[in-house]
């Protein structure tokens, strides 16, 4: 069994941080070959903690062009092996190459396929003349890693994402895929099996896109991708679609700007394409292929979707909560019956041999000759060589170091988690709890507490069910200010205020208890504090303190009223009568002008729960001339 996973990680560092370590991230995908796209690593700041994991060999390509602010693009292939040397595992490649045009430095000797050479300059229909420089530019963005696993050649691809009207990038993308296609055809002609995995940034058909318009499939790249597929006369099987021809709503990528996860409003652009013959000994081509005979399954790993499926938190205009994780979902393919390879070693282009990771071991000869040079030239040369030395011995125990760093980091997060659960929250909850009791005069019931909590999140309680899982949210000012004016009378204010008193003062008298409770379960704490408050009540006739707390409560109530007001003055959207979120015009003649839109996540227009497209300008206009 060989399991291959493709995953656009949207930044490898954040994903590593999310899982605690690279090793845990890779293990959670549980695959023999893991292909990451958009690693957003640059060669300058590569470090062991994002590249080296015990039990995996890495092959990486980083963006070398100046495009994009900071780290951009980048792909990495991780191979799970028991031994990096003399291994028979299929997962360990026999050769690897960065880029696809055979022009990158590491590929000078054309390891993967000895004699793939592009004649430069060359002509390609639709593209005109292509120069070597142009090709190198396409190949320089860290979008491809090729690994030769003996039985098959694996392309890990991050396809360019482009705006339809950016001519330069359209040409770029076209060139990218045309050259790739040339290389695939070359390999296939040699009788190799070719696997293409990655984020191609192309959804082949309407069924792969949530809001496909009628002309969707006409677009040039979608036509090209389909032409690569067996159904349209091409060499490849789209492993997922071929296994699940009818499945709709199967998406791998969701626009983070509109909260597309919430209503499964995405597209399927992460693919595993596979082509070539099977391992069976038979000559009839019909019904025999690597896909038919060896692909056991291909699925989208939906449990990797952001915000744990099932209780995805409400999007609320993207302000309230930052969803953790990538905006893509991994896809896996399971192959069976792949035979082992003869024993082979990790190819020299593996990340373990990168100077950034490993450091440079200098030969003693070069050291000695440098010494001589130094004597001739004085100081500076000596310093350099010393630095180099340090570098190389540092990197020796790099792996160990990165592990201890990891432990340290988790230690810190755990610690800070503890710190992050301060009592004020629960105190407030208690307080509101008591306010509730005071004003309604009813006994404390769980129901009251529930009602109160829903009002906390600041949206109508009906629509609010999913909402409670946001770890922390900016309270709508409303939450502060429940039922300000509905107090029946003065007497009630007093009772309200006094019941409010008990909580803070009882907390004072019982600081130890408070401490004891805080790390524990919320409900327990609530119970203890409730009883404490009840017990404390008679003892607490300390007039001066209750006076000042009384004053404080008045202020609190007043603030609650103010914040309620503030919230109420936000425009409501027409679809759900919920407060809108503000946006401002980013370009054009109205630049800087404020407007309000529906706060909900984008979804299919048939779903009334999704964004209602409400739009309104903030109500400000120039004063007209007054006569």
């Amino acid at each position, binding site marked *: 069994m060989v399991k291959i996973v493709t995953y656009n990680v949207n930044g490898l560092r*954040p994903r590593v941080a999310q899982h605690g370590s690279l090793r845990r991230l890779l293990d959670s995908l549980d695959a023999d070959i893991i292909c990451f796209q958009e690693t957003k690593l640059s060669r300058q700041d590569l470090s062991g903690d994002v590249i080296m994991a015990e039990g995996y060999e890495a092959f990486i390509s980083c963006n070398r062009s100046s495009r994009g602010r900071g780290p951009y693009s980048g792909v990495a292939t991780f191979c799970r092996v028991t031994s990096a040397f003399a291994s028979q595992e299929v997962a360990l490649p026999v050769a690897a190459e960065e880029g696809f045009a055979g022009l990158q430095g590491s590929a000078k000797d054309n390891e993967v396929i000895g004699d793939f050479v592009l004649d430069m300059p060359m002509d390609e229909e639709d593209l005109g003349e292509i120069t070597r420089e142009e090709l190198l530019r396409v190949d320089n963005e860290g979008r491809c890693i090729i690994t030769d696993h003996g039985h098959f050649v694996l392309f890990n691809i991050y396809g360019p994402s482009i705006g339809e009207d950016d001519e330069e990038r359209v040409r770029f993308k076209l060139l990218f895929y045309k050259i790739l296609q040339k290389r695939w055809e070359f390999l296939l002609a040699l009788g190799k099996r070719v696997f293409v995995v990655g984020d191609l940034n192309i959804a082949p058909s309407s069924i792969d896109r949530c809001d496909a318009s009628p002309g969707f499939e006409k677009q040039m790249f979608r036509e090209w991708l389909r032409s690569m597929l067996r159904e349209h006369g091409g060499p490849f099987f789209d492993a997922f679609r071929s296994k699940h021809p009818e499945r709709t709503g199967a998406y791998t990528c969701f626009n983070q700007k509109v909260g597309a996860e919430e209503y499964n409003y995405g597209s399927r652009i992460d693919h595993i394409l596979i082509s070539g013959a099977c391992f069976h000994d038979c000559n009839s081509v019909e019904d025999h292929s690597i896909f038919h005979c060896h692909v056991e399954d291909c699925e989208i790993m939906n449990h990797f979707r952001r915000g744990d499926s099932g209780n995805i938190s409400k999007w609320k205009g993207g302000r309230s909560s*930052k969803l953790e994780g990538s905006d893509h979902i991994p896809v896996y393919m399971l192959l069976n019956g792949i035979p082992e390879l003869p024993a082979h070693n990790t190819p020299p282009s593996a990340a373990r041999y990168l100077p950034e990771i490993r450091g440079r071991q200098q030969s003693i000869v070069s050291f000695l000759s440098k010494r001589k040079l130094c004597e001739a030239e004085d100081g500076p040369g000596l310093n350099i060589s010393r630095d180099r030395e340090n570098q190389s011995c540092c990197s020796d125990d790099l792996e160990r170091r990165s592990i201890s760093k990891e432990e340290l980091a988790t230690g810190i997060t755990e610690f800070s988690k503890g710190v992050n659960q301060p009592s004020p929250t629960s105190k407030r909850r208690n307080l509101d709890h008591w306010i509730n009791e005071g004003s309604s005069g009813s006994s404390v019931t769980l129901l009251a507490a529930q009602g109160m909590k829903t009002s906390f999140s600041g949206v109508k309680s009906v629509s609010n069910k999913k909402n409670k*899982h946001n770890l*922390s949210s900016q309270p709508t000012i409303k939450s502060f200010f429940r039922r300000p004016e509905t107090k029946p009378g003065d007497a009630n204010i007093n009772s309200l205020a006094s019941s409010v008193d008990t909580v803070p003062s009882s907390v004072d008298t019982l600081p130890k208890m408070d401490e004891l409770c805080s790390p524990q379960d919320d409900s327990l704490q609530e119970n203890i504090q409730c009883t404490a408050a009840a017990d404390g009540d008679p003892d607490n006739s300390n007039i001066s303190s209750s006076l000042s707390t009384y004053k404080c409560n008045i202020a609190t109530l007043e603030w609650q009223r*103010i914040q309620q007001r503030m919230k109420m003055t936000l425009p409501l959207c027409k679809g759900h009568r919920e407060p809108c979120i503000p946006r401002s015009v980013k370009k054009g003649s109205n630049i800087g002008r404020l407007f309000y839109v529906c706060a909900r996540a984008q979804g299919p227009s048939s779903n009334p729960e999704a964004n209602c497209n409400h739009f309104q300008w903030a109500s*400000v206009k120039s004063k007209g001339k007054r006569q």
Partner: protein
Amino acid sequence: MLELRLVQGSLLKKVLEAIKDLVTDANFDCSGTGFSLQAMDSSHVALVALLLRSEGFEHYRCDRNLSMGMNLGNMAKMLRCAGNDDIITIKADDGSDTVTFMFESPNQDKIADFEMKLMDIDSEHLGIPDSEYQAIVRMPSSEFSRICKDLSSIGDTVIISVTKEGVKFSTAGDIGTANIVCRQNKTVDKPEESTIIEMQEPVSLTFALRYMNSFTKASPLSDQVTISLSSELPVVVEYKIGEMGYIRFYLAPKIEEDEEMKA
């Protein structure tokens, strides 16, 4: 008729730079007591209150209460045309749809008039209650600004905790965590560099750094910032404007929503 002459015109310039990113449009209210503003940010989460008392102006004439709606971005553009030493005079006629800013150079050899259109802005004045706070921290405004900026490169929120030992600012993000502790320090030579903590009881609250960072734009107005915290109230971040007034920012704490209802 309204005529307000402010000798230290740079104060008004700094005020506008402090609030223009938080609030797009706002009404300036002029009365016998002073020139003031109260406005919410566009998402109605934070509140700004500005007061410039009439005594602070060299000349203050306000015949009747007047409310002038202005786009703060445009107003800031105009005020940027004033030199730092210029005297600024704000003039408006009753019922006029424009306001005039007059800039005089210190030696009176240059006088500039800028007239700006007013806007109609619906806004409602909120009575902000006086309250007592559980903890009040006074610290150098540059220090606070630096802390907010540094923390926002790590996380989205800051937890401000005040204890007897000092005030702690902490955050957590994808790449790690950060904690900055400032201890009480009254013994410095210059009072503007001191950090003073008045605490009735320990308090710990969470705030969105996005807002805190935009509050710190007011740092040029004052060497010291005052942060007032109470567990039931919005935080107040106050910058004094010389002897003549203040700018206060109010922000409700973020609440950790409970996990308990999941069950």
